Each structure stands twice: as structure tokens, then as C-alpha cells.
């Protein structure tokens, strides 16, 4: 099963919708609750990064019998130093975004901890691509 979402940068009112939809869909299958929670955390953080840091993006989720594979692609400023971005506490979030409770610099580390495979690639000035796999 395939699910596709468009994500708009800066739109904090719709934020979290894609990850919620995927979680609701997965709930209908017989997936252990711990696995469901991992997927929810990883997808939410990935979705919020597009909303908080990029201009626009897409989420494509592939639900297979053995797991879920998700590709997030965005147009945006991209990430100069991926290793640094992956460090806990590193954040370039604006003051406005921080006031809403984002910007702890925990999103990418949360994705790493809650996925079985994570591939982050980026071209500065163009955009970012994130692949997440969680096995059931």
C-alpha cells in the first residue's frame, strides 16, 4: 500500500497531518504497538523538519508486509553539514519556530533512534532527501 502527501513549509496548522494519517492506517494492521510508536515518532520529526526548515516537500510511504519505507523529499535550503545536523542539540530553528516548542535539535536523533535504517542526503541551496525504514 502506498500513501502520498504534500507538505508545505511554514504551515504549522496542518503540521503532523501526514504522520497521523500513516499511523491511523497502520493501526488497522496487526502491528505491535512499539513498532507503531517508532514509526509515528520518526515520521512526525521528518514531517516537522520540512515544515520548519524547508519550502515545500513530499512524503511517500510504502507499507509492505515486512515494514514501512518512507521517502521525504523537499525543496529548501538543504543541510551544509549533515554530521553536525545529526548531533543532539544542533538546531538552526528561528526564534519564531522555537517559540512553538521546536528547535531542541532532537528531531534527527529521534529519527535515528526510532528507525532501522535512515539515509539523509542534501544539496545545499536545493533541498533534502530522507529515507526511513522501520521493520515490523
Amino acid at each position, binding site marked *: 500500500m502506498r500513501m502520498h502527501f504534500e507538505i508545505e513549509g511554514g504551515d*504549522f*496548522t496542518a*503540521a*503532523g*497531518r501526514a*504522520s*497521523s494519517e500513516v*499511523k491511523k492506517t497502520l493501526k488497522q494492521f496487526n502491528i505491535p*504497538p512499539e513498532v507503531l*510508536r517508532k514509526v*509515528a*515518532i520518526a515520521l*512526525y*520529526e521528518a514531517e*516537522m523538519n520540512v515544515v520548519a526548515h524547508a519550502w515545500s516537500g513530499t512524503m511517500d510511504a510504502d507499507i509492505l508486509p515486512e515494514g514501512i519505507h518512507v521517502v521525504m523529499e523537499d525543496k529548501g535550503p538543504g543541510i551544509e553539514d549533515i554530521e553536525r545536523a545529526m548531533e543532539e542539540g544542533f538546531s538552526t530553528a528561528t526564534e519564531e519556530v522555537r517559540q*512553538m*516548542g*521546536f*528547535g*531542541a*535539535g*532532537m*528531531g534527527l*536523533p*529521534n529519527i535515528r*533512534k526510532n528507525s532501522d535504517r535512515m539515509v539523509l542526503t542534501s544539496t545545499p541551496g536545493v533541498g533534502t532527501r530522507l529515507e526511513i525504514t522501520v521493520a515490523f
Partner: protein
Amino acid sequence: MKTNVRQLMQELGFTCLAGEAYLDRHTEGAYLSDLLSDVMGKAEAGMLWITAQVHRNIVAVASLKELSAIIVVNERQVEPEVLAHAEEEEVVILSSGKPAFETAGMLYNHLREVEC
């Protein structure tokens, strides 16, 4: 032992702003943070979440993490639009008249007593 949200709310004097229908939820422990991805990473399902954040995004976090309730501190006003969204997502929002430190202290003592 576990307690439920309704009991806790009545005993500690919180008010319910959204999710009346779900007050029978069991709850165990609480997490205090105003950073959403900190809550995403560290809170556990069933916990209460004490926060000063009132932005709409708290609803998605509570729902995705299956938290038992959000406790907004300092009697902070929550927009009707956020409360409506909470109802839709089956999220309980309670209001505490006290600051975060006092709210957490009350809860800590209460949950410990319940455990004994």
C-alpha cells in the same frame, strides 16, 4: 498502581478544557517539557504531559505519543481552535492554575501516594 485522569483532575483541582469523554484513561507518571521533540523522544505512552506550550502542535504530539493528557500550566489560555482539534484527535487537555514546578510537585506526590 495506576490512577485515571478524572480522579487525578478532581483531587488536584485541574479543569478539563478538552476531551471530557476520555477522562477514564489510565495514567502512569508524567513528563515535563516545553520542547516538542524532547517529548517525542522521551515521554512514554500513557504519561501526562506538563507544559506551558498551547500551540496547536501539542495535539499532534499527544496523539502520536498516546499520552493520557496534556496539563497546561499557569492557567494559560488555549485557543478554541486548538481545543476543537484536541476533541477530534481524542486528546485530553487539562488546565492547572499553578506554575509548572508546583504542578509537577503536586503530581509527583500524588502519584507516589497512589503507588503505595
